[in-house]
Structure formats: C-alpha cells, structure tokens
C-alpha cells in the first residue's frame, strides 16, 4: 500500500507552483513611535512567537521599524523596566504610528511585576554598578535614586498595554 510522503518543508496539500512563477514580496509598511524610559529601549516586532525585526530607539525614544505588511505584536523593552506590548497593523507603503508610552522603572528581574525582590536587588547591590538592570536611572551606581524610582511603581505589573495604532 502506498502512502503519501510530504516533501520536507512543504505543507501537505500545497498547490504546485509552476517553475516559471516568481513569488511577489509583500510591500513593506513602517511603524514609528516613541518609548520613554531612562535607559536604552529596544522595540521588536513579532509574528506569533517569531521575532521579525527589532530596533533600538534613539536617545529621545523615537523608533522606526519596517516589515512586510501584516498584523504584528510590538514589544518595547528596557533593562529594569516593565515592558509594553500591543498590536501593530502594518500596511504596505504607509506608516503607522504607535502612541507614545512611558515604561515603568523597577522590574529589575524581568518577571513582569515590580515587587520586594526587585527592591532587595537594589539593597543587595547598593553603591555598586551591577547588575545593570538595577541601575534604573542609568547613572552608573545603584542607590537610593533607583529605589525611589522603583517605589513610585511598586506593585505594578506588566506587560503594559500599548494602545492599538492607526495608520
């Protein structure tokens, strides 16, 4: 008895593509916005759980990402801060802009909650420079200024909701 054996990498039941056909790439869309944090910010686009692209925001928090048109999850992260997450619908040939968002300082261990263990990390590393995630104001030393920042956001949880963008 014969059994169908799918070709590796090709979904079963996929139509046969003529050898002369060329795939037309989807037009790119652009996503811009501003993420405010006291430390360097990375903005990433995900399709499902797959990272599509990421970029570092500039010193003002401004970023611009380009990717094929489609619906994505956009995530903004900064070391020691609660991340922000939202959706982004990129339309080919046009630019969408996410609303400006402030990341909250204090999630030093990156477990999506600003809690006692984050505060204790500051206390255990007082007057030192590492771990850098505990240096919330990015001044090179972990001290009361970082604890002040954390205290302002104590008990907050993430990821922060980043509103839907409109083209």
């Amino acid at each position, binding site marked *: 008895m014969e059994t169908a054996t799918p070709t590796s990498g090709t979904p079963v039941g996929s139509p046969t593509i003529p050898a002369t056909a060329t795939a037309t790439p989807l037009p790119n869309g652009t996503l811009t916005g501003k993420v405010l944090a006291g430390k360097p910010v990375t903005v990433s686009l995900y399709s499902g759980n797959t990272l599509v692209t990421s970029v570092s925001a500039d010193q003002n928090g401004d970023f611009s990402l380009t990717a094929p048109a489609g619906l994505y999850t956009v995530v903004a992260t900064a070391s020691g801060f609660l991340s922000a997450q939202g959706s982004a619908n990129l339309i080919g040939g046009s630019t969408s802009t996410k609303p400006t968002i402030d990341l909250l300082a204090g999630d030093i261990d990156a477990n999506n909650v600003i809690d006692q263990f984050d505060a204790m990390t500051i206390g255990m*590393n007082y007057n030192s420079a590492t771990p850098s995630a505990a240096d919330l104001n990015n001044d090179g030393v972990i001290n009361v200024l970082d604890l002040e920042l954390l205290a302002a956001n104590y008990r907050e949880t993430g990821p922060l909701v980043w509103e839907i963008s409109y083209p």
Partner: protein
Amino acid sequence: MKSISAFVLALVFTLVMVMNVGAQSAESIWLTTNTTSYKTNETVIITVNGVSATPIQGFTFQIRYDPACLRPVNAVSTIPGMNALPLPQLAGQADGSYASTTPQTANGVLAEVRFLALKGCQTNVILESAALAIRNESGFAAPVPGVVVDQKNLAFTIDKVAVAAQSPETLTGSVLPLTPPEEAGPNISGWMIALAAMLVIGLAFAAFKLFHIGSTAGSKPGTSVPQPVLQMKHGPNAGANFQLNKLPCFIGRHPMNEICLDDPHIIDQHAKIFAQDNGYYLMDLGGETFINGRVVRRSSTPLKSGDVVRLGKSALFVFGS
C-alpha cells in the same frame, strides 16, 4: 548480644543525626509576641523570626492587620548590615523588606514590627507572606528555597481602657517606617454626609470669594496657598531646603535661575514651578525630568506635597507645600 547492642546504638545515633540535620535545614519564618493583651494607645510589638542554614542577604514579610484596630508604626531589624527598604504601604498590610550587601546569619529575630493599639477590640494579625532571600550568581535577589512559614496568626485583645499616648521609643537598628496610606472614613452616616456636603459647599464658596477678590486685587494666582518648599535629597545642594517665595521659580544650571544646580546633567533652564488655580505645577523645559519616577517631557504636571522630583541624573528633591 554485644552485636545487637551495637546495632541498636548505631541505629539510635543515625536517627539522632538525621533528626539534627533535618532541624538545621528547616528554613522557616514565624511570628511571636511577648504578650497578647494590650491597652488602647499602647505599642503592640510583633517579632518576625527566621532561621536559615544558608546566610541571607534579605528578607521580606507582609502582615495583614485590621486597620480599625491597629495602625502600623515601624519595623526594626538589628541584624548587622541589614538595611530597611522603604516602599509604599497598603491599608491593612504592613509590608516590610530589608537587604544587605553581605550575607548575614538568620537564626532568630529578623525584625520587630510595632503597631499602635487604636481602640478596644479583639483582633488577629496574619503573616500573609514572607521570604528569606539570597543574592544569586547574577546579582539578583532570589528566594531561599524551601522556606516554611510557621505560626502565621497571632490573636490580640486590646482593652478599651486607654493609657496616655506613649512617647516614641529610641530604637536601635535599621528602622523601616510602615506608615499606612491615608484612608477615607469608615461608614459615614447620612447626616454626616449632609454635614460634610454643607461644609464643602461653604469652603468652596469661601475659596471662590477669596480667589475672586485676590484676582480683582491683582494678586498672582496661588498666593492663597502656603509657600512651598523644595527639600534637596540628593545631588547638588543635597540637604538644603529652598523656600519658594517667588513664583514662577526657574530651576537649572544657569546662574540666572531662582534655583541654580551645578550639575552637568541639568540644562541651563531645566524646569519651572508655578502656581495656578490654587495649586502648584512643575513644567519640564527640555531636560530629563521625572516626578515619582514618571517622565515629564515639555509639559506641566500638578505637584502635590511629598512628590519626588528628579532632574537630570542625580538631582532629587521632595516637594512640600
């Protein structure tokens, strides 16, 4: 016969050793108190105890209490090097955390927690959660595994007979304030609401008249509120208090500002504080400005007493009005 005796002795010895090892490895946290009977206005003292075979670099506890019966005052730890971490409190929960830069032995008292007995009542305090912490290889605080929370509940009887208000004790160790947030009054009856409403209307009318007269007389807005003060906590001029006699008050590195802060991370004209509608506001003028950890960018934000303002990387002050 000798071999049987030797076997029994060896068995007993092994059992004793196992039991001892078990006792030493039993990491635990529990509450104790010397007495469970107090009078109104007395200080209720609860001890948070902990044992760990591994030296610790931090501990945390969250104690549930009835805010109608008790008011938390502070916690004190006498473990050398263990420093209090002041964090915002919740009504009904005394939330304490301590940390040390070096490992410390935990074998007994971690901290004493003080409450004020408010009135005659029967009440329980409950150790809602607690942990001992170590510093892991990456430098982050991590819980000591396997810590058992014993004796979570203590029952107290507070006599309605009040003693004279006690003067604050002189405490030795690292003191952690546990001041609860201000709460709305409990169960206000209808006539009290009406009375309060009349009072508010009267005050609003008086304020309106005052403001109106002040405006027509050409006074600056905000002159009816007390003079605010900036208490410099960190950075240039740390420890100094600035009374804001003149508003708006400009803050920056340039000497022409009302408050000049010589800090490379502060721009020439960094921020200003101004009065409007009987309140105070801080406006960022293009520098790096945070109020209670939140960024302020080229905009105005209301200031309230106790707000922590950071300018640049190091200048930190507390606003008071």
